[in-house]
C-alpha cells in the first residue's frame, strides 16, 4: 500500500471501521517557484484517529499541515473535513478560492500547534487562550475567562495563568499553545513537530498532554520525530518523503516490518 485508498475504511483501526473519514486529503499538490513540494498526497484520518507523519527534513511535512490548516492554498487537490470541501466555494461547477475572511471561519474547526509555539507575547497565558474565544467565537469575556482557565487546568498550567510567554519554559509555552487551539473545540488537531524546539527534559510533559488528548478521542495529525510516541499513541504511521507518502501502516507493522526500502533506511537514522 503506497497511499491510503480513500474508499477503503481504515482497516488498521477496527474501532472506526464503519465511519466515513473525518478528514480526507486528496491528490494535494503544492509548488514554491520551481520546487514541487507536494506531488499528489492522499490520506484519510478517521474520527478519533491519531495519525503520525514521519519524514526527513524538507520532505513537505509542514507544508501539508499548513495546507490542511488553510493557511495556504494548494495548487491542486482537495481537503475534505467532515464531508465538506474546505478552502473553496463550488457554484455551478466552478471552483473558486475563498477569501481570507471566509477562510478564517473555516479555520476554527482545525486546531494547529506549531514547532515554535507562536504564543502572543503581549498576552499572559490566560489571555492567549481567551483571544480566539472572545474574537472569533464571540464568547463573553467572563465565560471566555472560565473556559480558558478550565483549559489551562487541563494542560496542568492553572498556576501559570497570569504568566507571560517570556516567563514560561518551552514546555509550558507549548502546553499553552495546545490549550489555545483546544479551547476553540476543533474537529481535528494538527501538530507540527511540537517537541522539536524543546530541551529533552521538557519533551515528556508536552507528549503527556497529547497522549491524554488522544485518549479522550481527539482526532490528531502529528508530524513528529518521536518514534516512541508514534508507536505508543498513533493508530497509523506514515512516512513522507519528497512530497509523497511512501508507506503507511499501523505502528507495529510500520516500525517492525516496513515494506519499503525507503522506510527501512529512514528508520535506521531515527532509531
Amino acid at each position, binding site marked *: 500500500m503506497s497511499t491510503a485508498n480513500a474508499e477503503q475504511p481504515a482497516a488498521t483501526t477496527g474501532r472506526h471501521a464503519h465511519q466515513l473519514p473525518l478528514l480526507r486529503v486528496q491528490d494535494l499538490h503544492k509548488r514554491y517557484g520551481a520546487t514541487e513540494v507536494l506531488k499528489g498526497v492522499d490520506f484519510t484520518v478517521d474520527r478519533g484517529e491519531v495519525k503520525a507523519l514521519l519524514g526527513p527534513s524538507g520532505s513537505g511535512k509542514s507544508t501539508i499541515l499548513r495546507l490542511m*490548516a488553510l*493557511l495556504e492554498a494548494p495548487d491542486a487537490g482537495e481537503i475534505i473535513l467532515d464531508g465538506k470541501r474546505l478552502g473553496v466555494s463550488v457554484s455551478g461547477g466552478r471552483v473558486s478560492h475563498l477569501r*481570507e*475572511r471566509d477562510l*478564517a*471561519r473555516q*479555520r*476554527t474547526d*482545525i*486546531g*494547529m500547534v*506549531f514547532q*515554535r509555539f*507562536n*504564543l*502572543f*507575547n*503581549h498576552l*499572559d497565558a490566560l489571555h492567549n487562550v481567551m*483571544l*480566539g474565544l472572545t*474574537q*472569533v467565537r464571540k464568547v463573553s469575556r467572563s465565560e471566555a475567562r472560565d473556559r480558558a482557565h478550565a483549559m489551562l487546568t487541563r494542560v496542568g498550567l492553572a498556576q501559570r495563568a*497570569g*504568566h*507571560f510567554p*517570556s*516567563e514560561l519554559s518551552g514546555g509550558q509555552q507549548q502546553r499553552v*499553545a495546545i490549550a*489555545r*487551539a483546544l479551547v*476553540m473545540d476543533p474537529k481535528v488537531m494538527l501538530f507540527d513537530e511540537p517537541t522539536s524546539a524543546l530541551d529533552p527534559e521538557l519533551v515528556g510533559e508536552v507528549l503527556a498532554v497529547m497522549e491524554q488528548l488522544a485518549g479522550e478521542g481527539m482526532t490528531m495529525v502529528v508530524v513528529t520525530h518521536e518514534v516512541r510516541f508514534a508507536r505508543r499513541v498513533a493508530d497509523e504511521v506514515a512516512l513522507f518523503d519528497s512530497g509523497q507518502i511512501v508507506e503507511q501502516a499501523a505502528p507495529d507493522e510500520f516500525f517492525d516490518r516496513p515494506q519499503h526500502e525507503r522506510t527501512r533506511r529512514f528508520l535506521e537514522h531515527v532509531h
Partner: protein
Amino acid sequence: MEFDGTIFWDALTSQEYLDGAVLSIGLAAASQVLAVIIGFVVALGRISKHRAPRAVAGLYVWFFRAIPTLLVLLLVWNAGPQLFPALREDWFSPFLAGLIGLSIVEAAYMAEIIRAALLSIDDGQAVAARALGLTPLQVLRKVLVPQAIKVALPPTGNEFIAMIKYTSLASVISLRELLTTAQVGVSVTFRYAEYYVAALVYYLVIVSLVMLLQSWIERRYRWTSTVPTRRFLPPSWSRRSPGAPGSTGTPNAAQEALKV
C-alpha cells in the same frame, strides 16, 4: 550689560510665554497624533501585498522626506489659498495650516517607524492568529498593533520631541509659538540672554514632561506578570534582579546581553 534676573523672571512668568508654550505643545501634539494616524495608513500601504498601495505609499514617503518642512508650511499657508479659493476664508488659520503642514511631513517619518515596528513582530504570531480563525483586521488589531506600539514608542518619543521644536518653523506663517514669542521680546528690548534663556527653560520643562510621559507609557508595555512576593525579598536578594530594588521587571534582551 549683565544678566538681568528681573527681566528674565518677568519674561518667564509672562502670559505671552505661557501662551506661546501652550501653542507649541498643542500644535506639536495635534500634529503628532495626526501624523501617527496618516503614518499608520501609509505604513500599511508600504507592507501591502498589492503593488498599487505599495507604490502610492512609497511615493508619499519619498516626497515628504525629500522636501524641507519649511517649504511645505509656506506652500500650505501661502500657495494653498492661491490655488484653492475655499482656503481664503477665516477658518483657515495659521494654526490649521501649521497642523496640516507638520502632520503630513511627520507622517512620512512615522510611516517608516510604524512599518519597521510591524515587521519586527515575528511572523509566527500572525500565522497562529490566522490559524485560530482571526480575520486579517483582527490579527492587526489584536496581535500586531499592540506589539508594534511597544517597538514604536521610543522612536516616536524622539519624533515628538523633535516636533515640539519644529513648531518654531511655524513662525514663518505668523504663528506666535514659543520661540517666536522670545524673538519678538528680543527685537523690542535687545535683551537676548534673558529672553532666550526664558525660552530655553520652557523647552527644558516641556521636554522633561514628555520624557516622563513616555517612560510612564513604556512601563505599561512591559508584559511581565507582577509577582508580589518579590517586593518582600530582602535587599540582598533583589539586588540580583536587574532594575531598582523592589522592581518586578524581568531583564530585556539588551540588559541580558550587556549584564547591566
